[in-house]
């Protein structure tokens, strides 16, 4: 297998997946045509991420990066979370095969999209 054991462990870790009803921010990124779709749900209180979940249609790397990104933003401030990089996600997973780097980009984008959704809602509420 081309994946690190960290990736496989995260892939099988189920604690972060699911939906959050009435989430404060939802990020929907990816494209089913390309084989990867990631939805990120954030629950935010006082500009702090108090809960986060994902739903992902995609490969091992897509699922592992989703759950890892959630781990990395949980408990963080929105501002901090917005600066999560795909590089940090890759490092937390002990690396990814070159052809799977785009999955980590998707995770970064998913978090950012959810935060932007949250900020937009704030601005219009």
């Amino acid at each position, binding site marked *: 297998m081309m*994946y690190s054991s960290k990736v496989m462990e995260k892939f099988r870790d*189920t604690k972060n*997946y699911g939906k959050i009803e009435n989430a404060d921010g939802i990020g929907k990124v990816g494209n089913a*045509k390309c*084989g990867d*779709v990631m939805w990120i749900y954030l629950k935010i209180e006082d500009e702090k991420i108090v809960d986060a979940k994902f*739903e992902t249609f995609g490969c091992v790397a*897509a*699922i592992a990066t989703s759950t890892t990104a959630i781990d990395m933003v949980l408990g963080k401030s929105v501002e901090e979370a917005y600066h999560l990089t795909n590089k940090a996600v890759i490092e937390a997973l002990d690396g990814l095969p070159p052809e799977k780097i785009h999955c980590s980009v998707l995770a970064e984008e998913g978090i950012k999209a959810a935060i932007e959704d949250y900020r937009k809602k704030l601005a219009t509420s």
Partner: protein
Amino acid sequence: MNSTKYYFDYNATTPTDSRVLEAMLPFFSDNFHNPSSFYRQAGDARDAIDKARENVAKLLNADPKEIYFTGGGTESDNLAIFGVVSRYREKGNHIITSAIEHPAVLKSFEFLAKKGFETTLLPVDKYGLVDPSDLEKSIKDSTILITVMHANNEIGTLQPITQLAKIAHKKGIYFHTDAVQAVGKIPVDVKALDVDMLSFSSHKIYGPKGIGVFYKKNKVKIDPMIFGGGHENGLRAGTENVPGIVGIGKAAELALLEMADEEKRIRPLRDKIQKGIIERIPEILINGDTDQKLYNTLNVSLRYIEGEAILAMMDHEGFSLSSGSACSSKSLDPSHVLLALGLKHEDAHGSLRISLGKYNTEDDVDHLLDVLPGVAAHLRRMSPFWDKK
């Protein structure tokens, strides 16, 4: 055959049958001589090659003189294509194949397209079948080669080769078939099919890797692709891979003897898997033809989830499976075969190929049916597309 507990990927490759390996062993270190050498011992290597050629010829109902050994199925496919275009380029520059061929054919076509050849990829219907009238319509005065695969590696669909070859011959065009997935599984009779050239690969029929067969009617003339010391009647140079040739010969001999019984044993196992999946997993698609199909192959799309994730979960449970073809597993694109059938990208991404073989048991099948539904459910719970109720 013990390091994989549940191997369901026989279309990717097969273990070398122990009887095949046993036949090969004397030709590594004892009877190692170069078959082209003069001395007595080289004669044993030559005799062994002759015997292998006869066994392969018998399997295909061919004349031994029509059998050439190559380095594999891919090389044989390439030899058919490049051997014809190199020789008949002056006659025409149009070549035809189907949209669901193995990369060994499709990538050769892509390369030739870049080199100025005109290429036609025949469409297939939703079962993966080429329509003979499509072939008829696509033929031009400049057509010099038609190559259509016998059995598809991903979905198992069997093409109407006899009919297609007849259309080619009516126009005086050479017809080749990639029979890598057909030979050894079903009877393949080159006389009945009336193909000009045919390719297959040893490691798909319980022979060793690195050896293949190219069949060519004696009256068909093509250019070689590999030049040198005149081996294989001048069509494929290079010191003969004697153990490999002995191996594919033995594998051919065994296939001829055992194929019919294997079909009787394997077909019900495959059907049981199909039935079980249909019963136990909602929202699935069975891909490929229901009837004109290899008896060992089942291709199913588990909608709303992605193939690699399924493979990884199943691997964790001890199952070796594939999604699309083995050799494109590194690629991110969904199977070109499933897209050609008209599947949506999402469904093509979620495909699983289950291919059975010699060492699968009823127990393997039952265990697969116990495990797969849970894996599908697990991944679907994670999917944004799955409607959780």
